[in-house]
């Protein structure tokens, strides 16, 4: 997977035709194998751009910040990124006409060890679902498969899960990197920073980490697109995807909903209902 040249061409064309003000892509860090996001403002910088299987970070996140507000933006999105973008469009966070979306038919990115990342192995939609121009050959939607970590944890006893997660929440330092790196956490005033939360869970204790992460994962239930920006950002390397994949699993299995962001104007499972939703857990 290498679309470096195509992306440079597209960005160059867009700048020369004055169709965009800023282009968001990836560049090399210059000191190691990793790639980092880059925001390009002018034609002469387009040769920095590249795209390979190390282009991991979900660029839709940058549409939250002041750099892109009210500007015409070009950006590169993989399958998962485009689903997040789709939700941002549905939730009126960005205007479609201000975007030029370069969609990628993604073949999966690599994780830290250099192997194919877990979320890419389990990816349900490698192709961008919203785009102006598509690069690569779309391979189409895939079947939903249960996350292997969830299956492993489900197999554990309740005590086992409890002990595991106690360690997770203990190790959270409440830096909020997870929420800041999430494209769908775009609220300007997060509920966790409001008085209703801080009066009772204002400090960085384990108890407030639990409180914050639970609230966060429930706010992303039915919306998380499994791009794992949060996990990449977490300085404590916590397995945050577990919370989201668990919610995704419950929603997928019980409500027969589309996975988050797959189709336009689909707001996610919590914002609609079906008369036939399961009722057996209610007395």
């Amino acid at each position, binding site marked *: 997977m290498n679309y470096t040249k195509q992306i440079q061409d597209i960005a160059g064309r867009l700048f020369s035709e004055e169709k965009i003000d800023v282009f968001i892509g990836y560049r090399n*860090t210059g*000191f*190691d194998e*990793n790639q*980092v*996001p*880059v*925001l390009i403002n002018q034609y002469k910088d387009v040769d920095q751009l590249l795209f390979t299987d190390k282009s991991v*970070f979900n660029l839709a*996140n*940058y549409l939250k*910040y*002041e*750099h892109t507000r009210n500007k015409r933006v070009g950006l590169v999105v993989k399958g998962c990124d485009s689903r997040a973008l789709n939700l941002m469009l549905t939730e009126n966070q960005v205007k479609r006409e201000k975007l030029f979306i370069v969609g990628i038919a993604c073949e999966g990115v690599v994780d830290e060890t250099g192997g194919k990342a877990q979320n890419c192995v389990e990816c349900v939609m490698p192709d961008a679902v919203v785009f102006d121009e598509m690069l690569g050959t779309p391979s189409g939607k895939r079947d939903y498969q249960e996350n292997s970590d969830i299956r492993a944890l489900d197999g554990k006893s309740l005590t086992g899960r409890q002990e595991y997660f106690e*360690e*997770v929440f203990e*190790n959270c*330092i*409440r*830096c*909020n*990197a997870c929420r*800041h*790196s999430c494209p769908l956490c775009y609220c300007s005033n997060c509920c966790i*920073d409001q008085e209703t939360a*801080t*009066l*009772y*869970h*204002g*400090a*960085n*204790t384990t108890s*407030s980490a639990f409180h914050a992460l639970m609230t966060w994962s429930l706010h992303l239930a039915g919306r998380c697109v499994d791009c794992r*920006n949060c996990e*990449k*950002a*977490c*300085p*404590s*390397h*916590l*397995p945050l995807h577990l919370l989201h994949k668990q919610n995704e699993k419950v929603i997928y299995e019980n409500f027969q909903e589309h996975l988050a962001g797959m189709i336009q104007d689909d707001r996610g499972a919590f914002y609609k209902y079906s008369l036939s939703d399961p009722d057996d857990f209610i007395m």
Partner: protein
Amino acid sequence: MNLTTYSTDPAGLQAFYEAIISAHDTYAPVEKFGKFDFTRVDSLSTCNTDSPIPKTMSVKPLFFPKSAKVMKYKATSEGTELTDTEEDPLAGKRVVLGVRHCDARSLQVLDAVYKWDYVDTDYGKRRENTILISTRCNEASTHCFCTSLDYDVEQLDAFDVAVINGLDEKVYLQARTEKGETFLKENATGLAVANGSAQEEMKKQFEKFASSFRLKMDYTEINEKMQGQFDSPEFEDVSSNCVSCNTCAFVCPTCHCFKISDEKLRDEGVRYKSYDSCNNVYFTLMAGGHNPRPVKYRRWRQRAMHKFVYYKERFGVNLCIGCGKCTTSCPVNISIFEVVNKVAK
């Protein structure tokens, strides 16, 4: 002050560590979720005293924890009554193994602010009761630039005992403070005092280490040039791909900004002091709604200027020790080294 150097081999070092662990409250890097935290250990096998640099968190939480109780209060119909919190869990006598030189230096830097106009007694007590045993690195990591900063890495006395690898599988334990000297006298029983070649071997080791750095700069130049760069347009550029995630400040060994929060339950409450970060939008939000740093570049400017200008002006040292933890942890690998070099151009 006469500081002794002892000599041993890796097995002897292990035995030394084991003896410490059995005799003292000992903290050492323990792997959790793929990164190493300084945690209380009961045996050497559970920790890694030579944990990889990019994956090791700083020692800061042992002195300035992510959340600490400051005081308690109880409100009744008569009024509000204040009490001290229970005993500080970090105040006891303890030994920390596997600290890196840079990390230890950070405490020296922090001492300046903690013992400044207001003396933080909790912090002071924690410092006082801790013996730091530092391992000198053999090779610099990708984002390391400690040798380019305003302290002598080789002769650093920010820790009590230095562990340095010599030639031929030799390991030297060198006391760097009197506290360390006493500690080694008590604990390094059975270890031979190093012979004359030790100094030379250690110097060689340092030279080899110093030559392994990818990043090098002249801090005096940076300090000087940064002063006039408050309005530099570069800040906007270098912060453009920042996601304001706060990670850099939370993992930084020298970042010491905190927030005070009162957590209450019924009529009682605890006041906590917890980490905060100047990269947080709320950090400078005022009660009236005004925020002088509502945008990323201003927050980045604060971060860079504080580290290399303001702190230097006030305390004479840089608030950066070149450990590279922020760059490693940053989801988009923004390097403070790159930032200051670009700005100071």
